[in-house]
């Protein structure tokens, strides 16, 4: 398959950018005429990935988050959300429902579960001290 459009966003890991990021990615995806339900799914998953980068990747520091989104000619949206923060020690544990390292801050531990439910495919790459990249795919229309 070929990429028919692509964009990259780079922004500071401040909470005010959570809304900006999810709206920007969903606006980009609109080009393939997805349903409103699919757009809502994308917004929710992107919000979770960006929030994870802010609260876990960078925690008390501020760094850069880079989102790359691509539209493919087979109707698939690919989104990656990358930080260069702390990284995840145990990815499979972090992806378990209700697992959180910050229960005192009322984190639900459902971020990855939401991403996996709302998107068609989610993969995570992470290295301690080097950061985390979450890659997600969602079918926007039939090929």
């Amino acid at each position, binding site marked *: 398959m070929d990429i028919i459009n692509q964009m990259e966003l780079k922004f500071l890991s401040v909470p005010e950018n959570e809304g900006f990021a999810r709206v920007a990615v969903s606006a980009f995806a609109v080009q393939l005429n997805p349903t409103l339900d699919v757009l809502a799914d994308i917004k929710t998953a992107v919000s*979770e990935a960006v929030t994870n980068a802010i609260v876990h990747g960078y925690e008390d520091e501020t760094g850069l988050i880079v989102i790359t989104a691509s539209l493919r000619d087979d109707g698939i949206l690919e989104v990656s959300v990358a930080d260069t923060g702390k990284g995840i020690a145990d990815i499979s544990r972090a992806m378990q429902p209700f697992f959180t390292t910050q229960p005192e801050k009322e984190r639900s531990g459902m971020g990855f*579960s939401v991403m996996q*439910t709302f998107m068609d495919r989610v993969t995570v790459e992470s290295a301690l001290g080097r950061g985390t990249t979450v890659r997600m795919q969602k079918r926007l229309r039939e090929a």
Partner: protein
Amino acid sequence: MEHERKNGTVTVRISGELDHCSAQSIRRELDALIGEPGVKTLVLDLQDMTFMDSSGIGVILGRYRTLRERGGGVAVKNMNPQVEKVFTLSGMRQVIQIL
């Protein structure tokens, strides 16, 4: 946030988006309302809530834990489909009543 108090129940209408960014201020406002003497039940009217992610789950469950200790609880009503999907996924239907 608009709210209404009737006996031991406070009903709060949350508008806009509930994410990690807005969670802290919403949490603070809800805690002030349920901190009033005699409040045992919190009803969240989500008719005007346009978006919620898992940060909202944390906010709702946190208030539920507080009120459960007083023998009360939390109920929600008027969720849109996106909010309801997050709500259902998180298993909240087991502890939060839907009106």
